[in-house]
């Protein structure tokens, strides 16, 4: 048996999956319904009119297992609002997926946490806008939401479930990342922090995106973490993404995308088999196009520091292969911290 440090083996497995278009990691959005109204949310609809049934999801999950999917992330909206949530998780575990759940924590009481533990899920991510109630509740739009998220975090950690504090840094909650980082260290939770704010409107930058000065301050404060910068040799690889190759996203109605944030439709796996959608002309066209990004990106002097995301580029500029204001600003500032 070969057993190596997870990151190295995972990287090799992911590389093979990407070369062979095996959808190793899939994020499914069970519903767009949500009991929060977060300030930055990019969902345009909070209704359940097109949500697939548990039976439909069971069929899709079986097809994903056959296609080689190992990592299954269950998200929303708020996934625990879906009546069939536990039935779908149970079915997924029966098919031996490694299941992660992303939630706002509001419905994750002790009983729910124990059920998820018994089902053997891998990890839970709980969204925090801030490290204290007044700001978190203001930004989630729901009084009492911080207390519930905090309680959910404690339930999960007490049970020994691997749990992450998930946080998006924006102009409205700037500085909270340091406090949440501290909270994660004191509780034993993981900390997953993103400094990109997905725009809620097409062809625009989020009004909550960080300024150049704040990106710099964020990077400076988070520099205790290893700096992520490519060598000159693999800067081109850095501009590419595994979305649509080893990664996929499926919407509540069964629509398949390269990634939950990159809404280029491959087809719908509620009406066709996942395999047919994954190998559809639309999917093949996307993969062909993904190999040739725009000239300006390929020659950009900041490309070694670029955290390229086609989804954000598409939302901000309408062109997923080109530049986008947030990505370029982040790359330029990140490059200031790169080794000479």
């Amino acid at each position, binding site marked *: *048996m*070969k*057993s190596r440090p*997870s990151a190295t*083996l*995972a990287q090799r*497995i992911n590389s*093979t*999956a990407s070369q*062979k278009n*095996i959808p*190793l990691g899939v994020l499914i959005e069970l519903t767009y319904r949500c009991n929060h109204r977060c300030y930055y949310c990019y969902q345009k609809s909070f209704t359940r009119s097109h949500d697939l049934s548990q039976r439909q999801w069971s069929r899709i999950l079986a097809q994903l*297992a056959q296609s*080689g*999917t*190992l*990592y299954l992330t269950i998200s929303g909206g708020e996934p625990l609002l879906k009546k069939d949530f536990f039935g779908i998780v149970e079915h997924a575990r029966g098919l*031996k*997926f*490694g*299941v992660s759940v992303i939630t706002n924590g509001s419905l994750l009481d002790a009983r729910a946490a124990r059920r998820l533990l018994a089902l*053997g*899920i*891998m*990890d839970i991510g709980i969204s925090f806008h801030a490290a204290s109630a007044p700001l978190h509740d203001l930004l989630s739009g729901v009084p009492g939401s911080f207390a519930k998220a905090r309680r959910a975090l404690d339930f999960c950690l007490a049970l*020994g479930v*691997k749990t992450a504090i998930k946080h998006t840094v924006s102009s409205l909650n700037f500085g909270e990342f340091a406090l949440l980082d501290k909270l994660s260290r004191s509780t034993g939770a993981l900390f997953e922090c993103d400094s990109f704010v997905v725009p809620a409107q097409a062809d625009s930058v989020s009004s909550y995106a960080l300024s150049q000065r704040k990106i710099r301050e964020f990077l400076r404060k988070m520099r205790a973490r290893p700096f992520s910068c490519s060598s000159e040799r693999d800067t081109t690889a850095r501009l590419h993404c595994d979305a649509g190759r080893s990664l996929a996203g499926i919407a509540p109605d069964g629509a398949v995308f390269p990634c939950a944030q990159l809404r280029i439709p491959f087809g719908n796996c509620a009406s066709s088999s996942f395999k047919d959608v994954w190998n559809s002309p639309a999917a093949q066209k996307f993969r062909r196009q993904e190999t040739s990004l725009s000239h300006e990106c390929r020659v950009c002097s900041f490309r070694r520091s670029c955290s390229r995301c086609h989804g954000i580029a598409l939302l901000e500029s309408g062109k997923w292969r080109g530049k986008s204001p947030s990505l370029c600003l982040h790359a330029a500032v990140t490059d200031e911290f790169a080794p000479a």
Partner: protein
Amino acid sequence: MELSVHDRVSKNEHIAQRMFDDQMLVITAKDSMLHKLDDVGTFIWSTIEKSPSIKEICELLQESFEGFDSRKDLSDVCDFVETLEKKKLVVVRHCS
């Protein structure tokens, strides 16, 4: 405890697994550790589906792999099962 040929092996319920590129990937849910089994390991893993004894695993190996000798290679199988147990991928029920 040393393994005996009568001990029965079953998978830990809290693992994730998938055949990938003809080899088995297994993850332990508790720590998200990823393991890759080689060809023989993948074969043994597939036999564990029915909670066999170590003796039964050896018999299945002998049927499928030329040159495998149940008596001579028993210790290798025991070592492998012990490794799986240490990594919490399987549970061993000791039977006399």
